[in-house]
């Protein structure tokens, strides 16, 4: 097999090809990672009034100003939201996945269709009625507007996570479950001791995707917060910008804080990310 049949372009290992690849690689990294690098450098440049690629005066002044403007509180709000919503999302998904994958019951097909339907209901479309629902939650009549709980609960059930969990739990051999039941294991034991431990890779996928999805939320916290005290960091950026005292440097320092968690999660869990990316795209 000739080396040129390995890829669509069929670049060989010759010297010319390698030079071409090097140039392409550099261009790609500059175009896609360069702006993020500029953002980082600007954040650490004292008094930066615009994006810079080389710091004139290295320092933490921008972060100090950002902290004075309550950025840490917004960051804290973001962490509360992502912690609460992710925990809820994972719990809801493993429960629902267990029922859909391991139980045969009347109505299962209907529930499956309903889960798929939620994935076709963009949250953007629901924004206005959702704000009314949050102001007066049906049955319990609680007002969640102006509280972080109002951001957390609507994110609690996510179709994508439920589907990933269901697919994965289907793969666990039924013999394992039957053996446990013969030994007298109850429903909860089967769920928590047999099925769940075998689904760790799927937990990684829904954890990483759930984190990214929740961290990137914008419209929901926007309609829930009625004043700055419940802003998450992404929506706080916009109001920071309108403050005449906020320089590009301060804005980039705050943006960097908003960006760091999701980039770290991506870098540490790249494998889970890749797994879910293809799964999600192929499901459509």
């Amino acid at each position: 097999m000739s080396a040129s049949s390995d890829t669509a372009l069929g670049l060989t290992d010759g010297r010319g090809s390698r030079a071409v690849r090097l140039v392409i690689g550099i261009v790609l990294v500059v175009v896609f990672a360069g702006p993020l690098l500029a953002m980082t450098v600007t954040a650490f440049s004292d008094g930066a009034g615009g994006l810079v690629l080389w710091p004139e005066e290295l320092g933490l002044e921008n972060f100090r100003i950002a902290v004075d403007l309550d950025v840490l509180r917004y960051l804290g709000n973001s962490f509360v939201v992502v912690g609460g919503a992710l925990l809820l999302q994972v719990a809801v998904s493993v429960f629902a996945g267990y029922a859909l994958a391991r139980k045969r019951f009347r109505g299962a097909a209907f529930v499956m269709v309903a889960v798929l339907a939620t994935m076709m209901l963009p949250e953007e479309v629901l924004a206005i009625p959702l704000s009314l629902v949050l102001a007066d939650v049906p049955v319990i009549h609680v007002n969640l507007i102006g509280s972080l709980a109002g951001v957390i609960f609507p994110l609690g059930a996510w179709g994508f996570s439920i589907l990933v969990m269901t697919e994965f739990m289907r793969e666990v051999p039924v013999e394992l479950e039957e053996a446990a039941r013969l030994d007298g294991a109850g429903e909860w034991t089967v769920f928590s001791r047999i099925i769940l431990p075998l689904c760790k890779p799927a937990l990684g996928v829904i954890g990483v995707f759930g984190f990214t999805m929740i961290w990137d939320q914008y419209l929901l916290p926007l309609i829930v917060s009625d004043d700055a005290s419940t802003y998450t960091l992404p929506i706080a950026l916009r109001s920071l910008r309108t403050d005449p005292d906020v320089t590009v440097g301060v804005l980039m320092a705050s943006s960097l804080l908003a960006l760091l968690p999701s980039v770290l999660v991506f870098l540490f869990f790249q494998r889970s990310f890749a797994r879910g990316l293809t799964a999600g795209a192929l499901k459509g």
Partner: protein
Amino acid sequence: MATSIAPRPVTAPRVAVPRLRGRALVPWLFLAPAIVLFLVFKFVPMFQAVVMSFQDVRPYLGNVGVGGRNYTGLVQSSGFLSAVGNTVVLAVGQTVGALVVGFVLALLVEGQARSLAFVRSAAFLPVVVPVAVVAELWRALYSPSPDGPFNEIIALFGALPQGYLNDPGQSLLSVMAVGIWRDAPYDMMIIVAGLVGIDRTLYEAADIDGASRWRRIFHVTLPGLRPVIAILLTLAAVRGLRVFTEVFALTNGGPNGTTEVLMTFIYKVGFEQNRLGLASAGAVVLFLATLVLTLGVRAVRR
């Protein structure tokens, strides 16, 4: 499906009936949290959106049915029609642009080498950056002052400073470029995964037949990627129709409404002008558009 539990033989009916009932409850108990959350935060709001779209919504006074007046009002308002136009232009441009760029990138970074894996990861970064951060970053890059980053770059080639987001003639294209920057690496990653599945013997056969690189790409690679490309197109087009955050944070529809899209329009009508019925009608239209698009593509593919 093979893993589902076989129905158990019922031996003692009199005892088994209550027990069976308990068993039948088990799946519903496990599903309960998901069902409650979906009902309250997805299905009830959807139902309400449809109802409100036929009403004059008056908080504390009670809503009045107005038939299809919200929908006719929507079509007659000039803001809505230009928002629909902008949304379609943005969705098509962003989808096709990201796909073409993503495809070219995928061809360039396909391969086993470690250095390629590094380039892929670096290029993928924009996908995981929160949209709000992308917007602030690009606003800074697009700074219209002569010493803004892009203006300094084009000045190297002798071009005059441009307005980008502030220039009504360039604003929509500028927003589109941001979308392509963020989506292209995603498409790239999915296409790279698709490229792995292409039969290598076809490439060899093409080589033996003396096919050029271009013919190889057009007659072997692209046909092999068709399902992947179809999915990416659908996902991106739906995402394009419902775009909100990018536009809201980059321009909020300005200047002069040149970047107003459906969602920013609905947001303004609903939350700023408090015309909830009208905004709901807009949301229902948007929902139907995404539904038709998704089901339409699915029907065409079958």
